[in-house]
């Protein structure tokens, strides 16, 4: 009887191993707030989306999880548009530190900002 029940337990466990999706990044309300912003882009929807990016960073840090790819870059990009160069570049540098493959892309964003300044 004991053997049978342990076989059952093993099979049930196997089922979960086989099918369970792996969630590793915390994305909060990202999709919803980005969609709302895309539907009606204005200061209000942008502020809500910015909040959701900040929330992802706060919660991920609290959970000792890595901030998902692109989140620091996106926040940095919004800050750049608000002319907050220092804060923006800090975000960009964090993106590169977490994800070295973003270096060319981030470099491009930084360069574009500086070329815009000289115009």
């Amino acid at each position: 009887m004991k053997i049978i029940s342990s076989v059952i337990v093993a099979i049930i466990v196997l089922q979960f191993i086989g099918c369970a999706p792996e969630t590793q990044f915390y994305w909060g309300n990202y999709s919803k707030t980005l969609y709302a912003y895309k539907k009606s882009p204005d200061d209000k929807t942008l502020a809500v989306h910015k909040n959701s990016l900040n929330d992802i960073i706060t919660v991920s840090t609290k959970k000792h999880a890595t901030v998902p790819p692109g989140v620091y870059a996106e926040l940095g990009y919004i800050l750049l548009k608000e002319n907050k160069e220092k804060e923006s570049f800090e975000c960009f540098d964090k993106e590169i530190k977490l994800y070295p493959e973003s270096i060319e892309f981030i470099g491009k964003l930084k360069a574009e900002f500086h070329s815009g300044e000289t115009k």
Partner: protein
Amino acid sequence: MKNLIILLFFSIFIGCAPSITKQEFAPQMYVEHPKSILVLPPLNKSTAADAKDYYLTTVAEPLTNSGYYVYPIEIVTDILKQEGLSDTETMMNVPPQKFREFFGTDAVMYVSILKWNTVYLITSGSVKVQIECELKSTRTGITLWYYNEEVEVSTTGDNANQGGLAGLLIQAATTAIKTAATDYVPVARDVNKKIFLAIPFGKYNKNFNKDMLTKIELKKKTEKK
């Protein structure tokens, strides 16, 4: 008791319906191991005008969870626009190598939304979606992963467990609200989640390079026509 064990054993297969391994499905992924993916704005061939935005805002989450560096779609769209590339059809014809020069990405995902149909029955609803995704290497230009399947996600109300006629009425009402008015963002996310079950794990997933023999739920090996 014996019957129960047999039943449970078979339910493993029913639950996952395996038929092909990830390596058989996308052998080149295990050769090139792309780390980063640039998703291009999709070409919307469906009748749903919003499908493009639903797709774009929900693709990053499941794809990053599969282990890839995904370029933030909003910024990518902006940059492409600045380069005079705002028309999706034109974008689809840009060779993958160009995107490497421009963004430093290992791979580019070309996406066409073929179908985005809302099925609405009184007490149950669903969205049937067919999306053609082609991931191309920016080094060699070859196709690393190709997916073209119909995916169905339920939009049925959550009150299905309330029995009787009253329960059914509540369910019908919530289904109507969910299917008509809503909020397809979670549905779109589920669609993308289902699609990316078929992609091999990337560097940022702990199962990276360990999933060659993982079976995926596909009726047949899809190949580009």
